């Protein structure tokens, strides 16, 4: 409204005369355009091809901007002291020796495992294809946890692949461009991982919650057998992440008053802040990533079903719910908060 009143006044003085539609009209026009784009991008996915094409044009620019930093890093590598290299070399040799020994044991175990599987007519375990990728940068968005790596569709990376570092899972490939791909970190609130407690094989799903270095495991009953310090590994049930990769360590367990669910917080072990390379592991089968959600849901149900054996003791102690009530308690949980 104000914009139009200005225009009327301005038209009296030719030097300030503004051409074109009023500010308000422009606002409406461009808002509609943006909202249409947002809707198309989030719901319809028509834009992906155009977007990938444009990203490809942007890539050389990104490389150019990153060049000075890259140069500095290379110079830094070149100028590392003799002593440090020697000690590092020593440590790596020891590490290699250990790894080699481990690998030999592993090979024989693999052969044994395959034989057993053949013996019992089990399906062969999924083999995963993997690439070493370098982290280019974090995406400049405060609310999402994403990084960009320098391997893309032209190298054979697929959406849905897992990003792994030496210690554990870092994230999942969520967008693939020609030369680069975007990895969403496990701490991002849009990512869930089916996990398994290494100690007792309890299965659950870990959710990122958008904060630094925290994963949540919701929806587990408060009597669940989980302790602080338990290591969590991928269960491999979704077919996206290979089984048995460490995800995190349980850090905090708390039960809210009046809630029958326990809130479990874990610290992820893989960290992108510490190094420059990650291993991208492609999903064993491309079609699986689309089904991931369904699998996760069924997973969640399983994790519920896994626990009820001990419930009666606990619940009689708490004196709040009868075991029979437990399956339908979702409404009860939210009420006191």
């Amino acid at each position: 409204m104000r914009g139009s009143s200005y225009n009327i006044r301005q038209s009296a003085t030719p030097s300030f005369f503004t051409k074109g539609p009023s500010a308000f009209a422009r606002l409406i026009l461009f808002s509609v355009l943006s909202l249409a784009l947002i809707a198309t991008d989030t719901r319809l996915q028509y834009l992906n091809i155009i977007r990938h094409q444009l990203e490809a044009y942007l890539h050389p620019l990104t490389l150019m901007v990153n060049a000075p930093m890259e140069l500095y890093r290379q110079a830094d590598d070149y100028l590392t002291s003799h002593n440090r290299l020697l000690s590092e070399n020593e440590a790596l040799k020891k590490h290699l020796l250990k790894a080699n020994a481990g690998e030999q044991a592993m090979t024989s175990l693999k052969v044994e495992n395959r034989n057993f599987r053949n013996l019992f007519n089990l399906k062969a375990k999924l083999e995963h294809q993997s690439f070493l990728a370098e982290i280019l940068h974090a995406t400049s968005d405060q609310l999402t946890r994403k990084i960009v790596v320098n391997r893309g569709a032209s190298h054979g990376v697929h959406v849905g692949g897992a990003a792994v570092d030496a210690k554990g899972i870092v994230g999942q490939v969520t967008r693939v461009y020609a030369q680069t791909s975007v990895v969403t970190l496990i701490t991002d609130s849009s990512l869930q991982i089916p996990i398994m407690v290494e100690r007792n094989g309890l299965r659950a799903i870990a959710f990122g919650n958008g904060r630094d270095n925290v994963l949540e495991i919701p929806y587990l009953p408060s009597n669940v057998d989980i302790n602080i310090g338990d290591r969590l590994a991928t269960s491999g049930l979704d077919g996206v992440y290979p089984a048995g990769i460490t995800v995190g360590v349980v850090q905090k367990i708390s039960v809210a008053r009046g809630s029958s669910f326990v809130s479990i917080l874990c610290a992820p072990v893989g960290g992108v802040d510490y190094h420059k390379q990650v291993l991208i592991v492609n999903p064993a089968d491309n079609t699986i990533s689309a089904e991931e959600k369904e699998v996760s849901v069924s997973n969640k149900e399983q994790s519920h079903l896994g626990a009820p054996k001990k419930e009666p003791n606990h619940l009689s102690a708490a004196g709040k719910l009868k075991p029979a009530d437990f399956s339908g308690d979702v409404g009860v949980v939210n009420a006191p908060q």
Partner: protein
Amino acid sequence: MHRNKLSHIYLSLFAVYLLLLLPWTESALRYKPDFTLLVLIFWLIRAPRLCNIGTAWFIGLLVDLATGGIFGQHAWAYTVTAFFTMVYQKRLILFNRFHQFIYVFILLIIAQIVLLILKTFSGVPFPGMVYFMPSVIGVLLWSISLLFKLHTDGRPGDI
């Protein structure tokens, strides 16, 4: 009569755009002000005939391309911010330094709120007041740049 050249506007916007493509660490990202929007607001106030809401929208699209989020979120945030800049543009150049400081701060906050609303729809929890840190730092940079004779009102020699 206008000494503000279109090429100056696009060159400066291109320069800050490159800043966006730099490899920022995660902790730096939390405090990094929206340089692109700052430069955009500067030109919107100083040369409204060369740099208008359409420019803001287009730059927003480019930012979306670089950040890899939802396509159109920055475009919309910049459009809304540009609108509020244009509405008070004539008054803004007459504001004293303090009033302008406050108003630019409000503009930066508006852009962040629009982005936050869009994010909330996709299920991101509110990260707390720290979320608005980039705006605080942004407006401080704005006032520092004014000390270096970057004036938004055309001084007699400028227009």
